[in-house]
């Protein structure tokens, strides 16, 4: 089994402003992201040899990309729940690494705000119903499924309710601080710990500010063979590892699972570190974008990815480890918290921020001398999900 490391490079990326884009359709969002990527790569749409489109809700098959007006090239829609955007990047990268194409487009889009309600609809899991084709699920919300983590984490590590709420609040405060520096974010407001703690409860212990926003958006990447990357630009970004781990609901069906970590996250991280040759993630990774759909999840992700020892994320949160000025900045662009979560776009939006960081183009959010950056998604939730990690770097080797 060979590694993807340094076989593929990203030479152009684009990302729309995320938010309630009432005046923008799926096609508009795709065009905005793709043409920024084309321009960044110095290519035109005619140069794209194949494309992978990630979307969960915003259209089926290749026709979902028709707004881009690509001319009879192979286009495939991919879906991997909340890791859908990252999945598009994986598919395009593998096709280029296989030598079948030299230049491929990975693009993800989600138009959530046409639905007329706030929240991400439950994707159909088996059959055409989020509760399963038997319809026996209770129809609980996404926040509820991540509330399980918080309740159990507090109990497991003996953290009292106030202390626990404060710990979670600091994650949201950090992400809002980062988002305030990002014109493409949906939310730019700075919040305080007190505001976050006192916000209305959505699913205890998750309050309003513990939940990510809901928005429209699209992001795109142009991937090429690594050996031709410098033909496009002087500072290409290399794929170091692409990993997915799919659960089979082991955690929801057997008593072994503790609900204070996500096994799929751990497995995806192990795979991606092996592929990228990372031994000590906390030291070697310069910055990361992780799946902060809910603050309880960002909390356990710190531990799942090996940024913090088990049960010790609280200390790192309190030490400011994951802030822009910290040892390992996480969600430098504001995260899902400030961008919202258009499922098909999120994975690529994260890669976009890490791509900017690695090229030194992140402006006020720029971290110092980054070398390796990680992005992470979780589809589904605790008990059964899709863990996904991507590592990219600005140097070969």
């Amino acid at each position, binding site marked *: 089994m060979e590694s993807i490391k340094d076989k593929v490079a990203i030479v152009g990326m684009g990302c729309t402003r995320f938010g309630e884009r009432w005046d923008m359709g799926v096609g508009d969002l795709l065009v905005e992201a793709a043409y920024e990527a084309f321009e960044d790569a110095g290519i035109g749409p005619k140069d794209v040899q194949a494309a992978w489109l990630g979307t969960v809700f915003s259209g089926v098959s290749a026709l979902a990309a028709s707004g881009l007006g690509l001319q009879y090239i192979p286009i495939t829609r991919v879906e991997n729940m909340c890791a859908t955007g990252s999945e598009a990047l994986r598919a395009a990268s593998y096709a280029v690494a296989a030598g079948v194409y030299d230049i491929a487009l990975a693009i993800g889009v989600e138009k959530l705000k046409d639905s007329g309600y706030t929240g991400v609809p439950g994707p159909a899991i088996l059959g055409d119903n*989020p509760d399963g084709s038997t319809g026996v699920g209770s129809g609980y*919300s996404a926040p509820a*499924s991540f509330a399980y983590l918080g309740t159990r984490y507090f109990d497991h590590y003996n953290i009292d309710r106030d202390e626990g709420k404060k710990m979670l609040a600091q994650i949201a405060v950090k992400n809002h601080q980062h988002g305030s520096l990002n014109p493409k974010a949906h939310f730019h407001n700075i919040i305080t710990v007190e505001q976050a703690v006192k916000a209305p409860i959505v699913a205890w212990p998750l309050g309003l500010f513990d939940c990510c926003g809901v928005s429209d958006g699209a992001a795109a990447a142009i991937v090429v063979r690594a050996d031709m990357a410098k033909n496009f630009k002087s500072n290409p970004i290399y794929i170091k590892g692409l990993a997915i781990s799919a659960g089979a609901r082991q955690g929801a069906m057997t008593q072994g699972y503790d609900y204070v970590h996500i096994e799929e996250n751990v497995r995806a991280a192990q795979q991606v570190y092996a592929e990228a040759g990372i031994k000590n993630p906390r030291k070697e990774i310069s910055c990361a974008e992780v799946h902060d759909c809910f603050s309880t999840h960002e909390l356990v992700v710190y531990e799942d990815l090996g940024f913090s020892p088990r049960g010790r994320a609280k200390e790192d949160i309190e030490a400011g480890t994951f802030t822009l000025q910290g040892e390992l900045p996480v969600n430098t662009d504001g995260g899902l918290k400030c961008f919202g979560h258009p499922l098909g776009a999120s994975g690529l939006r994260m890669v976009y921020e890490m791509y900017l960081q690695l090229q030194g183009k992140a402006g006020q959010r720029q971290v110092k001398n980054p070398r390796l950056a990680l992005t992470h998604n979780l589809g589904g939730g605790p008990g059964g999900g899709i863990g996904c990690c991507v590592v990219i770097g600005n140097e070969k080797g």
Partner: protein
Amino acid sequence: MTGITSLGAYIPTYRLNKEEIGRMWKAKGGAGEKAIAGYDEDAVTMAVTAAVDCAKKGKTANGLYFATTSAPYKEKQSAAIIAAAIDLDKTCRTAEFANSLRAGTSAMMAAMDTVASGSAEEVMVVASDCRIGAPKGRFEQLLGDGAAAFMIGSKDLIATIEGTYSITSDFTDVWRMQEDTFPQAAEARFVVEAGYVPTMKEAVSGLLTKYSLTPADFSKIVFPATDAREHADMAKALGFDKSHVQDPLFSQIGNTGAAAAMIMLVAAIEEANPGDRILFANYGDGCDAFIFRVVKGVLGFTMKDRMAEKVSIDYGTYLAWRGLVPTEPPAFPPRADPSFAARWRERSSVTTLKGFKCRKCGTPQIHTIAQGVRICIACQTKDEFDIYNFADKPAKLFTYAVDILQPTKNPPGVNGVIDFDGGGRLVCELTDCNIDKVKVGMPLEMTFRKMSQSKGTVNYFWKAKPILGANSPYRPSKRS
């Protein structure tokens, strides 16, 4: 000799105070309160819980007769749903006794005959009713919800049936047309004077004459009435002293319709001493009268225990739960209807909460959305399972979420990851719980409930509820 070999009952947790109803309509409320089926309960789910209570004592039946006037379906048998939920063998006989408040005793007499004829060893009779009185009306004050279950057999009897006497009367006192939501009634004095009193008297005196007995031969008389005053007057008319009349529970649970006399009989037998003789008469389109002789005492829950855990709800909650007022639809998108084919395919998991136990590694497992399990989730062994019942296993709450967003008639939704004693885990909804008292590790049991309505059918499945002890703190909080 046929008789009762086991019994059970179910009184839902919720109460609507009659003063609360009076407050709503600026009228004098009646005395006490009435039992209200929860937002996720109906005649079928209450029947299942009563049947489980009855079957808990190690009994299984060869038949199930269900008596109700409020079956969720006009066409489709509720008895079959109940039999499936309590896991009776598919060779068991099922039948519905409907359309009359006397349906419970009609079912009981049919069960006696089935057993006496040798067609079945034991037949379970379940009576359950969930009638809705028209807002502002007399029945709104009177009607409550509940269920009772009896196992009728011929061996190891708790009480023998020493005699019966029946009369049928085509008398129009209470009725519901096909399209009616609420029962209607003829003029109250006419009902009592021309129907209830003469019919009851005729049946009871017929029974006494037939078996050469007098009221003095009975330690208790059990019979229904529309309300407390009619009940007291009837006892007097039949020649029974107050002290020998079984409490109709009107001020605690209301008039529970086809279940009313049956619930009273459960209480009477549970309170009786061996040797006691009970006169039981049930009224509705005639009267069925029985002589029961109690053979031995009943251990376990009493009716008082069953009524101990209660929570008052307000009138608005009651209206919303019964669908009597349109309410704002949830902010969630509507979900696709469940598939009839999928529910049939997975009926063992959906209706009976059966899962699988791996023969190789011994892991009990059930799919959270009730899909079949072909590959062991723990050891990947293929197709080597024993069927494993989760419905009767106690569980503990591993973690939970109180969900403001969940579409439910009783917000907020409470959901939990529950670990069954003996292995296996399910992520499911919790019901009948006080959200302020929900905590990690709390003991739970499974209960058969309505999940949602779809394509005009009821979607039944199992939820977890706190195990109620006599002083259990896990009662639902009063919701305002």
